[in-house]
């Protein structure tokens, strides 16, 4: 008799516990802090670009987000751990600042290749169009160091390079 009673009560409590199990506390949807994935000594690319914009003579520039880089330069988002970029807003002149920290070495190579293609396209665009722009573009080149890849198209590209060099 006791066995039957024990079995019945056990079944009741197990079942009740299962029913109560559906009333779990609401899931905490608060975003958890993401792993920064940023090396402690990573260069603040946005800060570098702001310094350039503040100290180098440039035409009116417009800032591009990392999402814009695929359309403008063919840079896949997963290649870029961090970036800062801006271009001449008028659309027909090619002043550009593109600073990227690649996700890895392979991505860095892809980014470099894309920026070199972009530079060649810019030259082709200007060759028979705006000779001064063409001459400027021809003096510029894509540079890289470790995971950093950058391209400055400007009459003042040397000044930009000097600013960036301070951060390495």
């Amino acid at each position, binding site marked *: *008799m006791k066995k*039957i*009673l024990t079995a*019945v*009560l056990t079944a*009741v*409590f197990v*079942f*009740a*516990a299962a*029913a*109560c199990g*559906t*009333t779990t506390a*609401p899931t905490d949807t608060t975003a958890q802090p993401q792993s920064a994935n940023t090396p402690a000594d990573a260069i603040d690319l946005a800060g570098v670009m702001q310094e350039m914009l503040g100290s180098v003579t440039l035409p009116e520039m*417009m*800032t*591009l*987000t990392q999402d*814009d880089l*695929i*359309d*403008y*330069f*063919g*840079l896949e988002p997963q290649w870029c751990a961090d970036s800062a970029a801006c*271009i001449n*807003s*008028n*659309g*027909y002149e090619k002043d550009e600042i593109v600073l990227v920290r690649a996700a890895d070495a392979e991505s860095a190579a892809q980014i470099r290749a*894309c920026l070199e*293609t*972009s530079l*060649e*396209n810019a030259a*082709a*665009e*200007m*060759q*028979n*169009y705006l000779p001064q722009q063409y001459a400027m573009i021809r003096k510029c080149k894509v540079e890289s160091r470790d995971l950093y890849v950058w391209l400055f198209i400007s009459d003042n590209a040397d000044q930009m390079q000097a600013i960036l060099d301070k951060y390495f």
Partner: protein
Amino acid sequence: MKKTLAAVAAFLFLLCAAEGCMQDQDTTNTTMQTIGETIGYDNEDDTSTETESVYTTEYTSAAETAAETPDFTVSQSEITASAAQITTTQTKTTTTAPPAETATTAAEAQTQPGTTRQSLIEQWRSAIDQRTAPKADPAFFNDAVFVGDSVTLGLRNYTTAQRNKGKDCLGAAQFLCFGSMSYTNTIGSVSAESMHPTYKGKKVRIEDGVQLCGAKKVFIMLGMNDFAAYSEKEWKQNVKTQLDRIRSKNPDVAIYLESVTPILSGMEHGRFNNDNIRQFNAYLKQVCDERSYTYVDIYHVLSDESGHLKKSYCGDPGAMGIHMSNEGSAAWVQYLTKTFCGE
């Protein structure tokens, strides 16, 4: 004894089960309350308001119909003298009451047997989406691609800047641009030196780019680099050749030919003048009439009384006098939006 034990067990069972359901209901109510507060509704007191105010708004423009109707054209006679706007007769914006299933409020659903908490949340979210959706419908441009030279590059930059500010600008339209591109110089093969638009950084032929974009509508503004650089016979032939290629590769795409935009007063030289632009545009209009494409008269949107580019719309008055300022780009976007989205 056995009967007593069975009765006790049954009572305990019912008590626990009831408690579980009650707690589940309480959690649902708390969640609903939170969502309701998010949109400023009290889900206990204002459900009737919610029921009445959830609507599905549909916008249909004649231009959108044009994309699906081969015979649609916009004739020159329909362009008004004042703004020379394409008088695509906008189908009146219709606001319709939602079908019964979309009108069902979360509060009503809450009372329906078998409704889960998740489905209630989803219905609330749906209601929120409908409440907060912009009244204007930019969807027309979501499957559009703009093809053009440096003038359209300016539009692209303006659009990007607006979108990065969180503003809606030509929906999700894409761009295939390249400075100094023309109907003529895009006919050859792609090479390092060629003039072809870039898609994700790589040069492509226009027709291939349109296909890669998955576009259903293509807005083409080319010609600024044609009419002065080539003979009339050449550019006329090249316009048709280029359009044939786009059509052949993209048989289902709706083609919109945007007129070439005007030159600023004082910046015309030789054959590079507004008379020739108007002649070129007249040909584009003729092609649209012949092929049932849509002609989009941007020229008159951006020109002053004398037919030159309006000064405040010019972004390079000291250089070429053909590129747009932000104000000019804004006028261009506003016209497109008004014409094709009915805003």
